[in-house]
């Protein structure tokens, strides 16, 4: 009985695979491009999922269109531009470098510069400050005197 159940369990992945839509490609390279593109394109309906992950109807349509375009010889750039023209910058997980994304791209650099500047200033100040014996703790002075 247990053996039979285990055998049935082995069949489970087959049922799962049947749900995922299958696209035929001319080459392994095309299939790899399809995988990376569908990971990089964002589903406009269920936001924060890529079209590869999403079950939404529109994501399925977008996957089908991506596959079709790849088979027809479109470059990765063509595919991303196709969707960007229709759904806006939102659709790509790689935002373009533009005026409205300046903060996004340069923000981290600015923060690091400010933080680095502050740390540098602090270090410089600490190294420039003359070593003053008065800063020593009383017990330290005592020890020094004993030597």
């Amino acid at each position: 009985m247990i053996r039979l159940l285990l055998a049935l369990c082995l069949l489970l992945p087959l049922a799962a695979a049947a749900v995922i839509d299958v696209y035929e490609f001319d080459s392994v390279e095309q299939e790899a491009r399809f995988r990376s593109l569908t990971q990089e394109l964002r589903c406009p309906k269920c936001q924060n999922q890529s079209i590869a992950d999403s079950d939404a109807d529109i994501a399925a349509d977008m996957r089908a269109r991506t596959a079709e375009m790849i088979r027809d010889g479109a470059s990765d750039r063509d595919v991303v531009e196709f969707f960007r023209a229709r759904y806006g910058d939102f659709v790509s997980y790689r935002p373009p470098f533009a005026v409205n994304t300046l903060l996004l791209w340069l923000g981290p650099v600015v923060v690091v510069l400010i933080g680095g500047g502050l740390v540098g200033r602090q270090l410089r100040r600490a190294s420039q400050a003359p070593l003053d014996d008065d800063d020593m703790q009383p017990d330290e002075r005592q020890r020094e005197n004993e030597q």
Partner: protein
Amino acid sequence: MKKSLWALIPLVLFLALVVLLYNGLGRDTEELPSTLVGQPVPAFSLPSLIGEDRMLGPKLFEDRWSLLNIWATWCPTCYVEHPYLLQLARQGVAIVGVNYKDNDEKARTYLAELGNPYTEVIVDKRGTLGMDLGVYGAPETYLINPQGHIVLRHTGEVNERAWQQKFLPLIKGEGVQ
């Protein structure tokens, strides 16, 4: 003096962050800006649901203000907005329906039973026109000016409030109805 100015920096940064985040509060992240606003209706050639063997194109939207309404019988919100579309049609608003990824028979039954607010219905079975418009769900409604350019994209239900606040000001703003 110099020192006290430096001490203000964290406060200023904090206030800037407050302003930035406050702006984001309450914003509807589901609403995406349409890339097509200001653009002509994309080219298409698709059959009509009502007439026999007629192909429709972007010419439908010329010479008058019109609405392009994406609908389907599988879309619950479409049933909700349907009475309001009928009311708009009675007021003389030209509404072109796009039957989006639907079954023709079901769509005809829907219009026969609930009434037809559309001057014409485009059959977009594969969702190609929808994709060219950047549609990601139904219903969606586009306002198109007499030059055939898209002026507004509205996602979700069209109701009195949306019509008064979003659509009418644009139509009146350009002085034509």
